[in-house]
C-alpha cells in the first residue's frame, strides 16, 4: 500500500508573527521556517505504517516554491521514501492545493493520503477535506487513532463532545490531530541519507491544474492588545476584585 503525505512549510511554531506596520502583510523577514507540526505527525504515522509492514512506500509532497524542498527533505529524513514538489510561486489557496494534490493522487494512486488537520499559519483547516471531495474519497479528520483493516481504515476522531470512530473504504484521507503520535527526531545519518532520496518536481500544468485565486488579502492588523492587569496580594483581594470591580461573580 502506498501512502502519500502532504507537508507544508510554515513559520516555526515558537515564532510570534506580527503584522507589518503598514498593514500590507505579515512580517516574515528572517523568521525561522519549519515543517507544520501537524504534517510532522502525518509523516510519523505514515512511517509507522511502513515499519509495521502495512505500507510499502511513503511519498512526501509539498506545494510551494523551491524553499519547500527543505521540508520535503525533513520528511525524507524522518523516513519517507521519496518526495514530490509541486512548484508554485509562493503560497496558494487551500482549494488549489487540494486540486494539485488530487493531480498527484491520480498519478500515484495511493491507498491513504495523510495531511495535517490545519496549518499553523493559515489556520484554515480545509485542505484534506477539499481533497476528499475532489477525489471522491472518504475522510477521517482530526485523527487520534488510525487502524488499517483490510480494505478499510478505522479512524478515531477528536470531535466536540469527545471521540468518534468511523470506518472508511480505502483509498481514504486522514488528517492528523495532536495526539495521533509523537514524532521522532531525525538522526544525523538519516538526514544525510535523505539528501540522496529521489525528489521529483512538477508544475501545476503537468498536473492539468490552473492556479486560480478566490480570495485576496486586503490587509492585516495586530489583534486588540490586552493590557496586563494587576497582581493581587491574596485570595481575599482576588475575590473582592472579581465581585466589586469586574462584577463577574
Amino acid at each position, binding site marked *: 500500500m502506498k501512502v502519500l503525505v502532504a507537508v507544508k512549510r510554515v513559520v516555526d511554531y515558537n515564532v*510570534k*508573527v*506580527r*503584522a507589518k506596520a503598514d498593514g500590507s502583510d*505579515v512580517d516574515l523577514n528572517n523568521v525561522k521556517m519549519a515543517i507544520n507540526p*501537524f504534517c510532522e505527525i502525518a509523516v510519523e504515522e505514515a512511517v509507522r505504517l511502513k515499519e509495521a509492514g502495512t505500507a510499502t512506500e511513503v511519498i512526501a509532497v509539498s506545494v510551494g516554491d523551491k524553499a519547500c524542498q527543505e521540508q520535503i527533505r525533513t520528511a525524507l529524513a524522518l523516513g519517507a521514501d521519496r518526495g514530490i514538489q509541486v512548484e508554485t510561486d509562493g503560497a496558494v489557496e*487551500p*482549494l488549489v492545493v*487540494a486540486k494539485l494534490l488530487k493531480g498527484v493522487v491520480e498519478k500515484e494512486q495511493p491507498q491513504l493520503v495523510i495531511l495535517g488537520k490545519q496549518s*499553523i*499559519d*493559515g*489556520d484554515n*483547516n*480545509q485542505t484534506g*477535506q*477539499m481533497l476528499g*471531495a*475532489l477525489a*471522491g474519497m*472518504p475522510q477521517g*479528520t*482530526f485523527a487520534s487513532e488510525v487502524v488499517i483493516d483490510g480494505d478499510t481504515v*478505522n479512524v478515531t*476522531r*477528536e*470531535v*466536540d*463532545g*469527545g*471521540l*468518534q470512530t*468511523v*470506518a*472508511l*473504504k480505502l483509498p481514504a484521507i486522514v488528517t492528523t*490531530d*495532536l*495526539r495521533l503520535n509523537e514524532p521522532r527526531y531525525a538522526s544525523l545519518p538519516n538526514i544525510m541519507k535523505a539528501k540522496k532520496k529521489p525528489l521529483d518536481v512538477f508544475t501545476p500544468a503537468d498536473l492539468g491544474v490552473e492556479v486560480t485565486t*478566490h*480570495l*485576496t*488579502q*486586503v*490587509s*492585516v*492588523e*495586530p*489583534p486588540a492588545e*490586552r493590557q*496586563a492587569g*494587576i*497582581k*493581587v496580594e*491574596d*485570595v481575599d483581594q*482576588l475575590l473582592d476584585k*472579581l465581585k466589586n470591580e*469586574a462584577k463577574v*461573580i
Partner: protein
Amino acid sequence: MSTLVIAEHDNATLKGATLNAVTAAQALGADIDILVAGAGCDAAAQAAAAVAGVNKVLVADNAPYEHQLAENVSLLIAEVGAGYDYIVAAATANAKNTMPRVAALLDVAQISEITSVESPDTFKRPIYAGNVIATVKSTDAKKVITVRGTAFDAAAAEGGSASIEAVDSAHDAGISSFVGEEVAVSDRPELTAASVVISGGRGMQNGENFKLLEGIADKLNAAIGASRAAVDAGFVPNDMQVGQTGKIVAPDLYIAVGISGAIQHLAGMKDSKVIVAINKDEDAPIFQVSDYGLVADLFDALPEFESKL
C-alpha cells in the same frame, strides 16, 4: 440575496452555536433559511423554526445523515446550497469536517472562522494563532463561510415563526460509516457557551487534582477546560482542550490555573472579558494577558478560593 445557515444539532436539540451563526448571517444582510440535516431530527427542526429572524427551515430527515458523516452531508448541502449566495455554519468540529467538502464540490474557497463581516464580500479572520487579523475579500459568486462563535452574539432562540419544509434527497456516498463514539457526559455548561470557564494546566500534576477545580466550577456554574499539556499528559479528555487547535472560548470570566500562557493556549481564550491567572511563577507569560494575577501555589489557593466563594 439569500443565506443558508447549517444547523448544529444532535437531532434532539439545536446547539447554541447555530444562534451565533444566525447573527453572523444577519450581518450579511440577506434572507436567512436554516438547513437541518439529520435522522429523527424533528425536534431540532422545531427549535430552528423558533429562532428569531429565520424565513424557512429545510429539514433533510434521512438515515445517511444521522451521524453527520461529511461524505453524505456535504453532497446534500452542495445540492441545497446551489440556490443560495451564502452558506454559513458555526466553526464546530462538524462544520470544520463538512464545509470544506461543500466548498470544493461548488469549486469555491471556504472562508474559515470569520470574526467579522466588513461588507458582503469582505471579512476578518484570525491567522497565525490569532497574532494577526487578516481582512480577506472573496471573489467567488457563492461564499462558503464558517463563523467563530465567540465573535458573534447569539440570536434570540425564541420569537421566530419560520415555515418548515422537507427536503427529500438522501445522499449516501457509500464510502464511510459510523462505528461508535465516546461522548463525555457532564452536567456542566458547554465549554464554548459557558459564561465562566476554569482551566487547569500541567501545574495540576494529575487528573485527580482537577477535583480542586470542580468544586469551584460547581459554585460558579463554570465549564472546565485544560491546556494541551494537561490533555497530552492524560489528566483530562481531549474535548477539554482550549487553544489554537482546541476550542475557542470567550467567557465573561476565564480562570487559568497552573497554565504558563503559551501563544497556542492564549489563541483560545484571550478574548475572554476578564482573565484571572493563578500561577506560582511570577514571570509566567499568562500574567501578561490577565486582569488579575495571583502568584501562589495552586494547591493552597484553590481550596481557599472555593471555601470563600
